[in-house]
Each structure stands twice: as structure tokens, then as C-alpha cells.
């Protein structure tokens, strides 16, 4: 055991947040440049509008860069440079515009995001060694049964074993401390194409392996410990994440499904 190897990654939640922030701001600048110009005191016509769109493209590129790389140090520094550019443009706007208050509001906002940008860029710059792609995830359940029982049941769960094999996951059976049964763990490298962007798409399309395996392990545990998949009136198929969002009311079914 020793050092924990699971859930390790270079990019922390602040870097992720800044990536999504870039995508959000960039989209607004690209889609609604006039509104964004007016918010910071610019006219929103002619050159200023084009410039706002160009800055939007810059933000989008940076967002994609941050979200898709395992250790986006350079992309984070590019955000710091972008903040400098934004501050200069806003300062120029402040000199020319009648809406000084709005320009000041814009400057205050850029300063507010420059602080975490610099902080996170420095943080990532201190990281050493090769960046690690993806992250190792281990989904696990504790099953209060003997090792033989659990292994026998696992041998019988061919669909689940096949899924695990396809994902290139490792399966382990460990005695739980304190005679609490067996820890069944399935560990795999979670490295979706396009990094965090891909991971978000997988979650939105309910195609996320970690969640699926967690579901499967819960159901497997239910069968081994209780002999059945537990079903309620609102979840006649038992535990399935896909059913969590849109459930039928907790009311008996018209037809018995067995």
C-alpha cells in the first residue's frame, strides 16, 4: 500500500474552474459581443465589437486547452497574459468612455480573476516530473460474506466480468479489516478523450464508466448479501443511475414486473 495511487491528478478543482470559466466567458463574448462591450463601458459598435469577439475566441481556446490537458501550466500562464491584455484594453476604454463606472467594474472583475490565475499558474509550475494522463479510479464495495462466496458469485456474474475486462480494469478481493467480509474493488485508468471536456460529455450522456461500475457493484453486493436486486415502486428495475433523474412516483405499479 504505502502512498495512495488512486485519484491522483495534477489538475485541481481551481484549474478546472478556471477552464470552465474561460469557456463560459468566451461563449458570452462570442455570442453577445455588444452586451459584453456595454457592460464594461465600450460602445459595442465597429472595432470594439470585433475586438470583443476576438477576445472571446482567445478565452474559448484557453478554456479548451486547460480542460483537455492533464497539466495545463502553459495554458494557465496564457490566462495570466490574457488578464494583462484585458486590463490594458479596459484602461484604454476607461480613458475614452463616458461610462467610467462600467469600465471600473470591468477592471475590478478582471483583477478578481487575475489573483486565482496567478496563484494556480505558480502552483502548477511547481509540479515536477512527467504529467500523468488521466486518473486511477477504484470503485469498491464491502460484502459481508466469505471470500469463497464472493469469488463464486463473481465467477457467475459474466456480464459484469466482461465489462470490467473491456475497460482494462483490475479486480481485487481483500479481507475487510475487523472481519467485515470482503472488499471487492475494480480499479481502472479514467482517461477520457479530451480530458475534463470528454468526462463532462460522458457524464451528460450517462456513459460514465465509474458511475456505471459503482451501480453494478451495488447490485452485485445486493445479490450476494440478500439474494435479490432491491426494487421500489419508483425504481422497478433496481438501482440504476440512468433512472435517478426521471423516476415514476412511489406508487404501486399497474402490472407486476418480475
Amino acid at each position, binding site marked *: 500500500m504505502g502512498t495512495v495511487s488512486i485519484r491522483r491528478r495534477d489538475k485541481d478543482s481551481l484549474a478546472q474552474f478556471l477552464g470552465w470559466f474561460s469557456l463560459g466567458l468566451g461563449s458570452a463574448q462570442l455570442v453577445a459581443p455588444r452586451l459584453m462591450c456595454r457592460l464594461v463601458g465600450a460602445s459595442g459598435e465597429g472595432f470594439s465589437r470585433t475586438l470583443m469577439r476576438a477576445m472571446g475566441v482567445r478565452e474559448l481556446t484557453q478554456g479548451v486547452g486547460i480542460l483537455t490537458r492533464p497539466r495545463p501550466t502553459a495554458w494557465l500562464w496564457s490566462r495570466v497574459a490574457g488578464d494583462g491584455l484585458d486590463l490594458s484594453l479596459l484602461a484604454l476604454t476607461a480613458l475614452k468612455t463616458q461610462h467610467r463606472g462600467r469600465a471600473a467594474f470591468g477592471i475590478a472583475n478582471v483583477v478578481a480573476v487575475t489573483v486565482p490565475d496567478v496563484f494556480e499558474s505558480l502552483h502548477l509550475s511547481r509540479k515536477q516530473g512527467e504529467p500523468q494522463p488521466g486518473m486511477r479510479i477504484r470503485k469498491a464495495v*464491502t460484502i*459481508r460474506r466469505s471470500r469463497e462466496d464472493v469469488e463464486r458469485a463473481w465467477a457467475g456474474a459474466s456480464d459484469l466480468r466482461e465489462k470490467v475486462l473491456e475497460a482494462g480494469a483490475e479486480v481485487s478481493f481483500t479481507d475487510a479489516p475487523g472481519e*467485515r*467480509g470482503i472488499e471487492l474493488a475494480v480499479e481502472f485508468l479514467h482517461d477520457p478523450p479530451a480530458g475534463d471536456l470528454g468526462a463532462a460529455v460522458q457524464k451528460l450522456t450517462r456513459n460514465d464508466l465509474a*458511475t456505471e461500475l*459503482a*451501480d453494478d457493484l*451495488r447490485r452485485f*453486493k*445486493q445479490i450476494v*448479501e*440478500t*439474494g*435479490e*436486486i*432491491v*426494487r*421500489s*415502486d*419508483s*425504481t*422497478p428495475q*433496481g*438501482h440504476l*443511475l440512468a433512472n*435517478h433523474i426521471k*423516476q*415514476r*412516483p*412511489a*406508487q*404501486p*405499479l*399497474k402490472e*407486476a*414486473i*418480475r
Partner: protein
Amino acid sequence: MRATCWMGRNTVEVEEVPDPKILNDRDAIVRITSTAICGSDLHLVDGYVPTMKRGDVLGHEFMGEVVELGNGVDNLSVGDRVVVPFPIACGACNACQAELYSLCENSNPNSRLAEKMFGHPTAGIFGYSHLTGGFAGGQSEYVRVPFADVGPIKIENGIPDESVLFLSDIFPTGYMGAEMCDIGGGEVIAIWGAGPVGQFAAASAKLLGAERVILIDRFDYRLRIARENTGVETLNYEEIDSVPEALKELTGGRGPDACIDAVGMEAHFHGPLYAYDRVKQATRMETERPYALREAIMSCRNGGIVSVVGVYGGFVDKFPMGAVMNRALTIRSGQCHVQRYMRPLLERIQEGDIDPSFIITHRLPLDEAPHGYDVFKNKEDECLKVVLKP
């Protein structure tokens, strides 16, 4: 069949719904003979528990007669009279084996939702939102009971429904609240809330040997019922200046040895802090109004125990953690592990130590459930407990 359904915030209706069917081998179908409205049902109706759906059948306090059994239930027979505990528990997982039935690891098919909300999932509960599994409840003519070989307790002699019905939830809940106070004899116990759970917590504290029990509420009729039936001391907080000061003065300056919060997330209080919580709760910036809990913590003696059986669902503000840490308080809590208490408490009832029916103030036919919810919620007509008869 007829069933009491949640139809939206503050709307309860009795609807025609399909009869329940056996879905799993360890299921039973029970024909309800008595069912009750619980204080925690009011949190659902008031809209403070997330994941309710229009049409959800309510009710988690019920008893009745077994009319159908799955192949996997061999300790019950058709015709048995049973009381059903509100947490659904498999009996086989580590939580159940440790008698932590309300934390059963298998009985909640929506455990992922509960995990997101609470960090780890909790057991399935009848008629108590989709967070706890989306099981149809028992304020109806029939109910499906999963893991019927584990939960239901047989009532074998002619004890009337009303004396044993509350084994399903509130009597064990109140008892667990008192048991968590480590009563060994000679203690002073203060209890916030003279609703059904507070009443049973008070009675249980007495049964367990507490020397003095002080019950706090704002409704004189509820305090009177407690004085008459349990012989406890009472405090009406609306009539006094400060509950913590009064408790200090009543206990030689020490404070109660243990404090039980039997109020939960919708506490009332007169003062500026109440307005603060009310506004934050209404705007969903805080999910609870934890006034009773704060007061219980501040009142408890140094090194004492704060036992929380009132229901909370999310996050509280202004939680006096400094008092908890610096004064070495212990907080104990939990949805009741009812299965653990049903048999010993049934024995207490049979031996005549207590007759839980003393809290019943209203008996109504099932079809009048919406009226029952109204009088219970608004404390009309000196309402303390409503029992429905299908």
C-alpha cells in the same frame, strides 16, 4: 386501492392507485388496519425534503394483516398481525449486523442520490421521498413490505392496534433519543419538543431511570398531556425569558446532563435569530431552522450529551461548534434503528410499563387524511397524533 398521496407542496389527497404486488421473493403485502401521520410527514408536505414526486404514496407508521407472501419469507404466514418498522433493512449487510438498521446498505435503490446528499447512502424508508428509495408508503389500504422476513414484528395476543402501532417509529425513536443519553440513574434530561417523539423520549427517559425530565414546548395542551401521563416537569418557552437560563437555574447552575432535540428542522422561536433563519430557509440559503438544536447545545452541562432525533435534511447555519468542542459535549444522532427496539419495547407494553396510545388525539377514516394533515400541522383542536383507519 385508496392511498394518501403527496400532490405537491402543502397538498395531500386520497387517490385511487393500483394495488401493490410482490416484486421480490422476500416481500409481503400487508392490509393496513391502522396507520398514523408522523411529524416528519409534515416536513415532506411543507416541501423541505427534496426529491418528492407528485403522486408519491405517504406514510411510514403502519400495521396490519399479512395477505400475501413472497417465496423467500418463511417466518410469517398469511393472516399474521404485524407492525412494520419504517426503515427497510436487509438484515445481512454490515450495518444491519451491527443493528444500525436505518443505515442498511442494500435497501435503498436510490442510494446514489442519498450518497450525493449525505456523503454516504442511508436505508430505504416507506413513503419518505425518493432520496430514501421511492417506496410507496402505508397511509393506504395495502402496502408492499420488502425484506418482510427481517422487519415486521408479529403481534400475537389481542393487544389493540393503538397500543402497538407506534412501535413502527415514534416510540422507538423517542426511546433511542433517551437511550443515547446514557441514563444510569440520577440524571436530569431536558427535551425540546412535546410532539409525539418528545412525549416518548420523556416517557422513555423516565423508564430508563432519569431522576428529572424537563420537557420544553410552546403548546400548553401538549405539555399538559406529558405532565398527566408521564409525570415530567414542563417549560413553556413562550412564557419565559430564556430557556438556557431557566434550565441552569433549575439544575443548580450545571445545566441538564443530556439534552434531546425532538424538534428538528422547522423549529419555532420568537426573536431576531428566528427571522434570520426563516428568511434563509425561505430563500433556500439554509435548509433548516435549527433553533432547538442550538439551544440544546448551549444549555447542556459541560461534558454532557446532546441527542438529536428531530429530523434534519441538509445544512445549518450558526452551529455553535465552539461550545461543542470547548465544553466537551457529545452529539449523538440517527434515524431510529427501529428493528433493534421493537421486541424489547413490545415487552414493556405487554408488561404494562407504558401504553403508547396516550398520545392519540384524533382517529379518522383514511379518506379524511388531508383533514388529518391540516389539524396536525396547524395544531388545531389540541391535536397531538392522528391515527387513520382504512
